[in-house]
């Protein structure tokens, strides 16, 4: 009688003690901070190449990420509405430094040591990274749409959804009524 009671008490104490590592019963695997969450958005080959490039060219990819942020965030501080004129003038500033940045990035790339067993692979990976940097000079594609127009099309989509729901409900009632 005493032994089972002691065992139960011991199990309760273990359960209630702090255990940061005990994630066996948690549902979602907590990703490590900064790690890329890889859903079906990427194919297997690109993911492997990305990982390989991450291992071989960490500096280049980090600088690439920062570069994209600079192009996307044309205003460092929030200043309210986004006007076309301000966006065009802001474009001129990063462009002047963009070419210098790219040259510096390529120099960094050339200075990185190559591994002997995967020399050819590294060469191809480096070539792809350089091509990606060239594409990174283009600003991200987006529309200059106002919120007013966005709300208009959103309400049209909502009306379409309600109409389709009404149609489904009508069919459902017809079937149930038989």
């Amino acid at each position: 009688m005493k032994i089972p009671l002691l065992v139960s008490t011991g199990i309760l104490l273990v359960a209630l003690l702090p255990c940061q590592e005990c994630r066996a019963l948690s549902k979602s695997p907590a990703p490590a901070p900064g790690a890329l969450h890889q859903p079906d958005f990427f194919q297997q080959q690109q993911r492997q190449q990305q990982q390989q490039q991450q291992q071989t060219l960490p500096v280049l990819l980090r600088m690439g990420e920062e570069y994209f942020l600079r192009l996307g965030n044309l205003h460092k501080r929030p200043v309210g509405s986004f006007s076309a004129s301000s966006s065009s003038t802001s474009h001129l500033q990063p462009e002047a430094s963009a070419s210098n940045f790219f040259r510096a990035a390529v120099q960094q790339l050339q200075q990185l040591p190559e591994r002997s067993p995967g020399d050819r692979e590294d060469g191809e990976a480096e070539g792809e990274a350089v091509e990606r940097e060239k594409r990174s000079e283009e600003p991200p594609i987006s529309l200059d749409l106002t919120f007013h127009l966005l709300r208009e099309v959103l309400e049209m989509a909502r009306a379409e959804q309600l109409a389709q729901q009404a149609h489904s409900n009508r069919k459902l009632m017809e079937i149930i009524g038989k």
Partner: protein
Amino acid sequence: MPSAFQFQCHLVLIFLAASKGETRYLEVRDAGENDPFLLLSEDLKRELSAGQIYRRSLREFLWCSGCIDMLSIEGQFTFTANQPQLHCATFFIGEPEELITIHYDFVNIDCQGGDFLKVFDGWILKGEKFPSSLDHPLSTSQRYVDFCESGNIQRSIRSSQNVAMIFFRIQLPGNGFTVTVKKISNLFPCNVISQTPSGRFTMVIPHQHRNCSFSIIYPVVIKISDLILGHLNGLFLKKKPSASCAGVGDFVELLGGAGLDPSKMFPLADLCHSFHGSAQMKIGCDNTVLRMVSSGKHINRVTFEYHQLDLQEAETRKENSIEEFCFPSI
């Protein structure tokens, strides 16, 4: 005796599973609440759903020099250019707890001639992205999936949140494409754009080091009714709350602005202590975002309601209104 001990062990194991598991944070809806089909028998379901896929052509809703459309339902959608279309986009939006999958059924565009068809994971407007670069696992370039580069290999693309969009350019009349859009459920929605100016939502971040934003692209009155930051786990006692939010790992912030990107919006309020009961704020901005920052050490949850703010009413009764930070919409 042995059977009694076994019974005790089973009870202990059940208690362990119940206390460590996160199932209590899930809200299971009644079967008939949203989907009446769940109440039907299998025969009736089959009869109703046979050949019921929704189909239509994408609209050439003309705006400036391009065309736009928005889709919030599943189905098969076709675009065929009647004239050269150089700046076109289609926005996809689902319910907060849905993810969007886009499958290329048929694509006939001239990639070599300058046509393109790209899927973007999120929404991007005037260079501002939702979710922001800080809150999305992929870099900006990775969020664009170009059919001309990878279309033969990757025919299906899934979004990371309830919004996605495609950009396309088709120069030759008669060319076009067909896509099938489906929705899949997302257990813990993180980044959300609300389809409607009013609603209610509970955001849960269970032991994840990530930041999640809920965006409402309308001026709203937002009422936070329940905020739980951290989880009282067994014998642990919470630290005494400090006067300010500085240095606190997990908190909720309310942002307002005129753009889509939460990282460029004005912080209007910070909430870093759990509370029950409502806290209301009127925000007269074009975009209102509730953003939860989570360290990953705790299970954080916030429940809130919102409805559209009548700007005339807000002018007459100035209570907790933060209109002066926002520029009037065009």
